[in-house]
């Protein structure tokens, strides 16, 4: 009998048997659950391509052992659209040319979601850039990424404030 962990992934609870404690959340998502939207770039916490939300917070899934995250609530890029309707951030990345090859994009979008949840950036492009500095884009689409994130940061924050009011 191998130890089992329970994870809620994009709203669905999964019980997963872990034969080997070395498995990272990234490898678990990609290799075991075939959720390949989350990308493996450097696998060392330097590029941000593997960014996911764990309990609402963005982290590098390549540096997180799955076995240590029993009970976690995980959101990946596959979990943010509503059916065929793109998440507003996904649509904004298209509208603002926030990518070229697209490899870093899932990580960029999950990181941007985390950044907006954190509520520290305000509507300041420099704070957005600093807050997104853990996500590298080798195509250099940073200008479009910043525009997309800034626009959605302001829209989503405004919507949240309206709900509270």
């Amino acid at each position, binding site marked *: 009998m191998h130890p089992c962990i329970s994870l809620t992934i994009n709203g669905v609870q999964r019980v997963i048997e872990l034969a080997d404690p070395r498995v990272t959340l990234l490898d678990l998502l990609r290799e075991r659950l075939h959720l390949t939207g989350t990308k493996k770039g450097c696998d060392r916490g330097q590029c941000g391509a593997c960014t996911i939300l764990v309990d609402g917070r963005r982290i*590098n899934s390549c*540096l997180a052992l799955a076995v240590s995250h029993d009970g976690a609530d995980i959101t990946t890029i596959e979990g943010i659209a509503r059916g065929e309707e793109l998440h507003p951030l996904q649509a904004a990345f298209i509208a603002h040319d926030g990518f070229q090859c697209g490899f870093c994009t899932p990580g960029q979008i999950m990181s941007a979601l985390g950044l907006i949840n954190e509520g520290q950036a305000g509507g300041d492009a420099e704070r957005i850039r600093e807050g997104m*500095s853990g996500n590298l884009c080798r195509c250099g689409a940073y200008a479009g990424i910043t525009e997309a994130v800034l626009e959605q940061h302001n829209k989503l924050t405004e919507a949240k404030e309206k709900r509270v009011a």
Partner: protein
Amino acid sequence: MKSFEYVRPASVAEAIIAASQPGAAYLAAGTNLLDLMKAGVCRPHRLVDVTRLPGLDRIEPLADGGVRIGALVRNADLAHDTAFARAYPAVAEALLSGASAQLRNAATVGGNVLQRTRCAYFYDVASPCNKREPGIGCGARHGENRLHAVLGWSDACIATHPSDFCVPLVALDAVVEIEGAGGRREVRLEDLHLLPGAAPAVETVLAPGDLLTAVRLPAGANSLSRHARYLKVRERTSYAFAVVSAAACLSIDRGRIVEARLALGGVAAKPWRARDAEAMLAGGAPNSANFRRAADAALADAKASGDNEFKIELARRIMVRALALAAAGTPERIPALPASPFATQSGALLDA
């Protein structure tokens, strides 16, 4: 990555027993340890997961005016804790200048303090490194060493301690609480990390099984909050370790420095407190001549360990600029680029 046994103790006492065996390592977020395990630098037989230990994830104000920070508090949570950031702004700024948002969300206070050097020769298992394999030699000593230590190094090791967080902490007389086989004890953060000497593999005073459970700032550390800055030179704007950094915390009364606290990062195998410089500043005016004299004193014993002579003058200038920024006053809000010499800030000496 070498295989390992995974254990998750329910109490600190169980954790200490589980981690006391040779080849055992504590696992918190794993942002440094997993990286080292993937590179084959660390090859633990057993990981003792401390992330579920109760009571270690709190930021507790103490009755005497100090604060206790549990070892499992995440770097981001500490930096964004409003009361903490107001009382210890240089610590918050240092935290936010380190790593990336993703890493700060995961990485813990204890893990930050105990993180390993980023010396490339330590990371490269094909290179000799006296930390990894005592006695085999140091690849950095005559290698690519422009970022290495200029204070406290030895021929056996010229690595630096990479933490930003530790720099203002050591300036503010932080203490670490440790639980071990012999019970609970406390060590000044300044005494936790060891200089390399002839035995660079021994990096701290911790014994096998010792668990860092909290970092404490003493009463009075918050009295320097109005003039407190951390400044860090990186090789890119963000998401990089310090080439050199400095924490400066002052208390100023009627145009005179009452008390000064100074420490440097990226220059030695430990966060480097500059006590001589502090003493020199006390009682004087906060002006650039005094700042420069203090910086000269702080770096008086500095010596290049290779192609890094430039770091000595850079450290002086960063210290002078950190002092000038601190004297100008803690900003209302941490700058968009925390600790960056490129951030515009009134009172900054951009050519110091």
